[in-house]
């Protein structure tokens, strides 16, 4: 199947200026401004196929927003190729944006001072949505996103969660084939997040809309996305199934033990003590190095145990560990540049 998003050798470099200070500095800045080149996005490649729901994650400043902005046409790449839905986004802006939807979690597309219903009416005119389609979609979204309670409230008075639901509705009214969601759950509480996730899932499954989602909340990805792309330092360091990622790099487990008495150093082979409070001790170990039953067996040989529990590391922590230890970065780097 042909891809709906095609990205090849995409690069975006920013010049970060170092200004001279003071009045004289301001004058010097006119003639000699020093700058650093920052490769916000550095030679990335990927394809997304119609109907996919892809999570695009990475630490702060990794290049997520820069990528999304190039895909939506707000930034012109330094080099490389982007084709979305057959268009070059920054060249054919007006026709291109008819076919996409975009929600930037930190911003709103709605009119701040107008009631939500007015904003949506305006969007109908802006996207030239035929009446029957508009009515059908609006009725559906009103129900799923529960918009009725604040349909006549000015957007500025909405809570963050309400505003996000309103923005999601606004982005979907014209039946876009492809939707970019940049941090759609940022700043929301657990319940609100869950509702947003359900809506995203609904849009993707029931309507076949292709979705590219960036987020800081790994729970969004775990719940929604089969495929994840991880970007770090402007490079895509992982692109594949979430399961695969977790199986390859995750697999850390925790064994929490309550001993019947206090032992000064209850050492255990193949496991590290990561927490010790009186007779409560937490060990950390890797699934593929040693089995839980083996560890428990070893423990009970040397110590008296009152209670114990085995947990898998939460996905969030696994991903964070991947970022922090730059496991993927080094791994991929070596593979791509054998010389270095």
């Amino acid at each position, binding site marked *: 199947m042909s891809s709906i998003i095609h990205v090849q050798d995409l690069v975006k470099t920013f010049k970060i200026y170092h200004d001279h200070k003071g009045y004289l500095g301001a004058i010097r800045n006119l003639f000699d401004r020093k700058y650093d080149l920052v490769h916000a996005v550095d030679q990335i490649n990927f394809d997304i196929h119609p109907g996919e729901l892809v999570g695009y994650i990475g630490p702060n400043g990794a290049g997520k*927003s820069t990528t999304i902005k190039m895909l*939506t*046409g707000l930034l012109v790449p330094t080099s490389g190729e982007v084709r979305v839905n057959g268009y070059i986004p920054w060249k054919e802006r007006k026709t291109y944006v008819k076919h996409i939807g975009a929600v*930037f979690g*930190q*911003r*709103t*597309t709605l009119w701040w001072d107008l009631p939500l219903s007015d904003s949506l009416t305006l969007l109908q*005119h802006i996207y030239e949505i035929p009446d029957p389609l508009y009515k059908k979609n609006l009725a559906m979204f009103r129900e799923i996103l529960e918009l009725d309670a604040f349909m006549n409230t000015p957007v500025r008075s909405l809570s963050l969660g309400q505003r996000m639901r309103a923005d999601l509705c606004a982005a979907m009214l014209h039946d876009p084939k492809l939707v970019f969601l940049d941090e759609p759950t940022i700043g929301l509480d657990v319940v609100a997040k869950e509702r947003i996730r359900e809506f995203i899932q609904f849009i993707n499954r029931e309507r076949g809309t292709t979705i590219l989602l960036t987020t800081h909340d790994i729970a969004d990805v775990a719940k929604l996305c089969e495929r994840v792309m991880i970007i770090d330092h402007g490079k895509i360091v992982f692109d594949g199934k979430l399961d695969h990622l977790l199986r390859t790099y995750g697999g850390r487990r925790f064994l929490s033990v309550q001993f019947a008495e206090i032992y000064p150093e209850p050492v255990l082979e193949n496991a590290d003590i990561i927490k010790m409070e009186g007779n409560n001790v937490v060990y950390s170990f890797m699934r593929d190095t040693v089995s839980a039953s083996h560890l428990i067996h070893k423990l009970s040989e040397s110590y008296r145990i009152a209670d114990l529990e085995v947990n898998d590391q939460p996905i969030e922590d696994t991903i964070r560990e991947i970022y922090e230890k730059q496991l993927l970065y080094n791994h991929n780097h070596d593979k791509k540049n054998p010389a270095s």
Partner: protein
Amino acid sequence: MKRSLSLLAKLLKIQVRSQLQYPTSFILEVLSSLLIQGFFFVAFGLTLIRFDQIGGWNLGEVAFVWGITEFSFGIMDMFFSGFDYDSFGPMVRRGGFDQLLLRPVNITLQVLGSRFVLRRLGRIAEGLVILIFSIIQIHASLSIVKVLYIPVLVISQVLFFSSLFIIGATTTFWTMDRLEILNVFTYGGGEVMSYPMHIFPRSIRLIFTFIVPAIFLSYYPAVYILNKPNPLGSPAFFAFLAPFISAFMFLLALRFWRFGVKNYQSTGS
């Protein structure tokens, strides 16, 4: 084009409706802005009565340039608020402009339709009252041609001020913030246009002739309409350059704006 205009009409209509949602508060706002702006003129007038005239112009004559400038600025400020660089700069910085770019509509039209401030009616009314006050005083010097030239002047001034707004808004693409110095030309321009401009030092007159040609939009036409001697000794046809200069400025401003939009780049975050 037709679709664009109908969309613009809808954008404005919805904003007007929402601004009229609380009629009492709206009327009070209009009235207070009328009074506040009007008091500047009253204070000036009371001083002028003491001295009888300024630069050879009496109160009725100064009221003409004052009123027409206020009236035109008010109209411009109502329709072109979207380009008001005081609010456009922050909008660009916070990514609001990006949101407009994500919609399949001409961007100039969207900015124009993004902010319509109906309560500017206060300032418009104030300008109109002063203008009418002036016309009552100066009607002896008016002819049919002169009366017909007044609306042409208003339109020219609206174009002139809107050009300054559009240029100001465009600069914020690069500065990300409003440039304080632009106020010298926009609000300063409006200020000097409210007086007989020969009273100002030569340097200021030169700025408002060659850098921002404000003098062609208020002083020279007024000299003609009010039958005043021209101490600057400039040719008589200067009185009729207003529509041409303002149209030229407006087109230039739009070009600059399009250049800015074309070269605009969002930030990386």
